[in-house]
C-alpha cells in the first residue's frame, strides 16, 4: 500500500497538529468577522477581543440604522452589479464562443486572438480613459456606470470556447439533421451539456462583480448613492472606526453571498476553471 493511502500514526499526528495551528492563525480573522458582528464594540475594544458571551444584535441594528453610509442601497447596488455582470458574461461569452466554434465565421482566428489578447490587459491600466469615457457617455449618475465596462469577458469566451470544442461533433450534426436550429441547439443541448464550464463562469462572474472594488470606488467618489457594499465598507471604516462591532456586522452582510458560493460552489469553480490549465 502506498504511503499516500495509509499515513502512519506519527504522520497523521503531525498532520493534525500542523493543520490545527494553521487553522487557528488563518481562520481567526473569519471567526472575528462572524462573531464580532454579534458583540458590543466594548468587547472588541479589549485586548485580546472577548469573543465569548454577551452576544447581541445591537451592532447589526446600528449598522442598518446609521445614515452616514446607508447599507441597504449599497446592498441593492452590489446585487445589481453581481447579477448583471454574471448574466452579461454568460450571454456574451456563450454567443461569441458559439460563433467561434460552430458557425462558419470569417476571420475566426484573428477575432479569437483579439478576444484572447484582452485577457492580458489589466483593467487598472486603462481605468483612467474608461472613467472619462463612461462619464462622457452621460451614465455618470446611473447604476449602469458601475457595470458598463464589464459586460463582456475575454476569459469567459475562452472558457466556453474550450468547453464547446469538447462537445461531440456527431451530436451537433445529428441535431442539425433533425432540424434543430442554432438557437435551440445552443440553449437546449449545448449549454446543458457544458454544465461544469457554465457553472464555473457563473460563480466566477458573480464573485468578480460582487467583490469588485477599484471601479466602484472611482464611480462612487462623485456620487455616494452609487456605493456598493465594498466601497461602503471602506466609507464605514472612515466614519465608524471606533465601532468595530458595527464594522464587522457590515462586513458580514457583504460576505453572506460570497461565503455561500465559496462553500457550496467551490467544486464547480475548480472543475470548470482548471479543466484547461490543470488537466
Amino acid at each position, binding site marked *: 500500500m502506498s504511503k499516500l493511502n495509509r499515513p502512519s500514526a506519527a504522520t497523521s499526528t503531525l498532520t493534525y497538529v500542523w493543520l490545527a495551528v494553521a487553522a487557528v492563525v488563518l481562520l481567526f480573522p473569519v471567526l472575528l468577522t462572524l462573531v464580532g458582528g454579534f458583540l458590543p464594540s466594548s468587547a472588541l475594544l479589549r485586548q485580546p477581543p472577548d469573543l465569548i458571551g454577551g452576544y447581541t444584535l445591537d451592532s447589526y441594528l446600528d449598522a442598518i440604522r446609521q445614515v452616514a453610509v446607508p447599507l441597504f442601497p449599497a446592498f441593492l447596488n452590489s446585487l445589481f452589479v453581481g447579477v448583471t455582470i454574471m448574466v452579461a458574461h454568460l450571454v456574451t461569452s456563450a454567443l461569441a464562443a458559439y460563433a467561434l466554434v460552430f*458557425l462558419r465565421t*470569417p476571420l475566426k482566428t484573428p477575432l479569437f486572438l*483579439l478576444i484572447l489578447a484582452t485577457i492580458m490587459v489589466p483593467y487598472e491600466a486603462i481605468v483612467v480613459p474608461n472613467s472619462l*469615457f463612461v462619464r462622457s457617455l452621460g451614465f455618470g449618475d446611473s447604476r449602469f456606470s458601475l457595470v458598463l465596462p464589464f459586460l463582456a469577458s475575454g476569459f469567459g*469566451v475562452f472558457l466556453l470556447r474550450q468547453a464547446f470544442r469538447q462537445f461531440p461533433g456527431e451530436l451537433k450534426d445529428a441535431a*442539425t439533421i433533425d432540424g434543430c436550429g442554432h438557437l435551440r441547439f445552443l440553449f437546449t443541448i449545448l449549454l446543458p451539456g457544458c454544465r461544469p464550464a457554465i457553472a464555473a463562469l457563473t460563480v466566477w462572474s458573480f464573485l468578480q462583480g460582487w467583490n469588485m472594488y477599484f471601479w466602484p*470606488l472611482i464611480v462612487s467618489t462623485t456620487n455616494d448613492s452609487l456605493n456598493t457594499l465594498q466601497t461602503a465598507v471602506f466609507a464605514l471604516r472612515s466614519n465608524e472606526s471606533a465601532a468595530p462591532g458595527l464594522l464587522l456586522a457590515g462586513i458580514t452582510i*457583504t460576505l453572506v453571498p460570497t461565503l455561500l*458560493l465559496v462553500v457550496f460552489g467551490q467544486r464547480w469553480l475548480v472543475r470548470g476553471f482548471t479543466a484547461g490549465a490543470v488537466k
Partner: protein
Amino acid sequence: MTRHASPPSTAAPPVEPVPGAESGTGSRSYLRRLGGRELPLAVVFLAPAVLGLGLFVIFPLFPAVFLATRGSDIIGSPTRYVGLRHFAELLTPEFGQVLWHTLAFTLIVVVAGVLLPLALAVPLSQRLPGMRVFRSLFTLPFAYSASAAAVVWLLMVDPGTSPINWVLRLVGIAAPGWTTDSNWALVTVAGVTVWMVSGFNLLVLSAGLAGLDEEVLEAATLDGSAGVRHFLSVVLPMISPSVFFVVVTTTLTALQSLGQPQVMTDGGPNGSTSTLVYSIFNQAFHNNNSNYGLASAQGLVLLIIGVLLAAVQFGVIERRVHYR
C-alpha cells in the same frame, strides 16, 4: 453546384430528415448548404462580446496613449501636448520606489501565497478523517473582497486590540508597528493579500493533487521514494500545471491589488506601500488629484508588465510544465 448528388438543391430546406445520414458525405454537404445563412448569425452572436471588449478594453488603449502625452487642467481635462514629459517623470527615483514596492509586494505574495497553500494541500491530500472539513474551512478567506479583508485585518493589527500583539507579548516579543512602521507596512499589506489568495490557491492545488495518478505514486513508493525527495521529484513535477496556474493567477492578483494598500495604509507611511496600481489610483482619483496624464503613463507601464507576463506564461507553458 453540389458535388455530391445527394439531397436535391431546393431553395427551401427539406422538411424531412435527410436519409443520407448514414453515408456521412450526404449529411456533410447538407450541413454545408446551411452555412450560407450563418454569416448574419455569426455577426449577431459575436457583436456583444466584440463590442464590449472593443469599446472598454482595446479602444481605451488609444486615449491612454493620448492622455499620457497631454497635461491636465484642474478638473482633469486634457490640455496641451507635453510630449514625453510624463514618461520622463517615470524615470525619477520616486517612481523607481513605486516599482520597487510593486516588485517586493508581488514577490512576497506569490512566494508565500503559493507555498502556504501547498504546505496545506499536501497534508490535506492524505486519506485521514476530517480533511474535507479542514479544506473547506481554509478556503473561506477567498470570500472576502479587498476592502472587507483590509478592514478586518486592520482590527487584527490595531495596537490597541490586536490579538496578534497579545500573543507576541505572551512569548515576550514586542510587536512592530504593523501598518505605521514604514519597514513593516508593505510586509503587512502583502501578508493580508497572501491570506486572501490562499483559499483559492488551496482549491486549485488540492484539485491537482487529487488528480494524481495513484499507480505512478505507488510505483515510486515501492522503489523506495519517500519524504521530501518523494515530494520534490515525484509529486511536484506531476502537479506542476496546477502550481503554474496558481503562480500566474497570483501574480496578476498581486499586481492588480488596490484595496489592501488603499484601505489599510493609504499608500503610506511615507509612501512605503505605494504600489503601481495604488499610484495610478492616487494620481488620477485620490483627493481630486486628477493627474490623468501621469496616471495614464503609469497605466501603460502596467500594461507592458501584463503583456510581458503573458509572454512568459506562454513560453513556460510550452516547455517547462509537465503534462501527462
